[in-house]
């Protein structure tokens, strides 16, 4: 039983009439609670793959089965709802909304889902407190340190109890010490709630957190777990 399985995914971009092939016919699957690292050199298409898995982008062919449903057959609205309910995303550059406070950034995930404002606030505060930001709820991102911003981003990723986290270079922009702090926090939650995670990184991500490593190279994917971990 898998949380997500990708079958024969292919993706190419049309650049002014020329087909730029990124990958073709790649397949893999993630088990519940499994942490999967997708590695590969810069430009091989790791972010592109995560985008397709999140439903923000479409593959040219292939299937993505998430919780028994085929993402490639869903409408844009259904995909948005899927993200809102089950998927958490975390990006290299945090991507917090600069005019919203820490609390508002986290709360935003729970909006438009019929959760009342008080309940929303309670859940968002709870997770921010858990991540040690209880006294920074009404700070704007610019008023927080880089590490604190990354913790807000983690809170945003986790607040709706997703079953899958897609992390694109989650530690790309911070020093090693902060990176390990962040990963410790993230892994604690992931393990506790048995969340699956797919992380993409070209190197900065410490392989010790991953259960398995898939290498993306020349448009194909290789399981390199035995060799590296």
């Amino acid at each position, binding site marked *: 039983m898998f949380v997500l399985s990708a079958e024969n995914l292919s993706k190419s971009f049309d650049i002014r009439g020329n087909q730029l092939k990124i990958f073709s016919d790649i397949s893999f699957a993630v088990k519940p609670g499994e942490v999967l690292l997708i590695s590969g050199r810069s430009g091989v298409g790791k*972010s*592109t793959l995560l*985008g397709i898995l*999140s439903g*923000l*982008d479409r593959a040219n062919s292939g299937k993505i089965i998430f919780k028994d449903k085929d993402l490639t057959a869903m409408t*844009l*609205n259904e995909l*948005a*709802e*899927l*993200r*809102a*309910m089950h*998927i958490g*995303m975390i*990006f290299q*550059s945090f*991507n*917090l*909304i*600069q*005019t*919203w406070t820490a609390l*508002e950034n986290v709360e*935003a*995930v729970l*909006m*438009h889902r*019929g959760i009342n*404002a008080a309940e929303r606030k309670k859940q968002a505060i709870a997770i921010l407190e858990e991540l040690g930001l209880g006294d920074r709820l009404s700070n704007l991102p610019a008023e927080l340190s880089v590490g604190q911003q990354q913790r807000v981003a983690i809170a*945003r990723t986790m607040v709706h109890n997703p079953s899958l986290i897609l992390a694109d270079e989650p530690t790309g922009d911070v020093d090693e010490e902060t990176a390990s702090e962040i990963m410790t926090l993230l892994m604690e939650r992931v393990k506790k709630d048995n969340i699956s995670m797919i992380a993409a990184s070209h190197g900065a991500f410490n392989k010790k957190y991953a259960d398995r490593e898939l290498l993306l190279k020349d448009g194909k994917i290789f399981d390199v777990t035995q060799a590296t971990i």
Partner: protein
Amino acid sequence: MNFDFLLCATRELKRNKRRTMAVFTGYAIAVSLLLVITAVTIFSKVHQTAIIGTTGTHFVTWLPSCGDLSSLTEEELSKLAKGIIPDKCKQNCANCTGCNKKPKDILNEGFVINTNTTRLLTLDLANEINKLPGVRNASPFLMFRFRDPTDNRLFTVGGLFLGHLAVETNSCGTNEIIEGQYLSENSLSKVIVDDGYALNNGLKVGSKVVIAEEEFEIIGVAATGADPVKADFYMLFGEAERVINRRIHNPLEKEANIVLVESVNGTVHKKVMEDVNKLMKNDSILTSGCYYPASKAIGLNEKLLWVFIAVILISSILLTVKLQLAFVVERQRDIAILKAIGWSNNSVIKQIVSESFIVSVAGCVSGVLISLFLLWAVPIEQVLGVEMDIGSPINALSMAAVIIFSVFSGVLSGLVPVLFVLKKHPLEVLRRN
């Protein structure tokens, strides 16, 4: 129903106070200016209408004679002079009153208006015209051209009714007497002479003239100026009937050849002229004063002003759309983030459109209040130099314009930018940072 988007919209507006105030102020200024301009325009229109409305206006109507004498042979003419209608005229004469009342001296004399020969009309027709809505007064008038047998001189005689307003405005009225006096009910065998004719023929008050072998005394001289219906002599309608009857084959039977009309005011004048023409089976000739071009000129100005206002409104909508587009593009990263955390396009659209809608409605409402204040505080009546209350800028038309404007601009200035931004791929937007 979920109102989360309203919460976010108001929050966003509060966070970006300067931007919000800029757009809000724009709306308030545009709407208040618009309302003040329309209030003044409507006021001046009311003012103009009041002027036209009190300016009565006049015209005369008549039917051109049915036969063309130049097409008749000598023989036919001499028959006609004896009252026998030639065959080729009969069809024309069938629906014509007065063909049996041809003048005996058909080549020189006849029913005319100025230099044109006319048909006869019944007095009943004049009565019907009198009853038309918008007609203040319609007065039958007789005008006949006589030949003086002693020297073959041609002159015209007008027969009029006393106390008819249409006579005052279209022909010889009481205030046009420059010497002597006007006609009265017992002015039998009395005439008024036109000043030009009097000068040419050495006539003055007290002179005697012979009209159809009957002697008349001149009791007044009139300067009729540019009146539409000018005769050389004016007498009572009954007197005119009597002298004309001597010169035609069969006597007049409650007939006249011209109807003078005075309409209630300038605004209905055109309609009255159309109605009269219809009543006369669209064959009539209408001679009018100079009302027409004046009213057209006023209407044109007004139309230009409305076009001007429409252009202002449309360009301010476009301008706001453009302004908001820049604001929304600035936020395309935020929008991409919201999409990544699971907001649907609809949620994003709702939030952005409510933002622009709230500012637009708030701005427009303030614009209305500002215009009320301006019209109350600034003595525009004095500035314009008129003694009249301009009144409230709130009327159905301007309110409809403001509501349509605020809704359109509010929705468009949110919808156009957000649809533009949503077309971009969120991942590409995020990648670019």
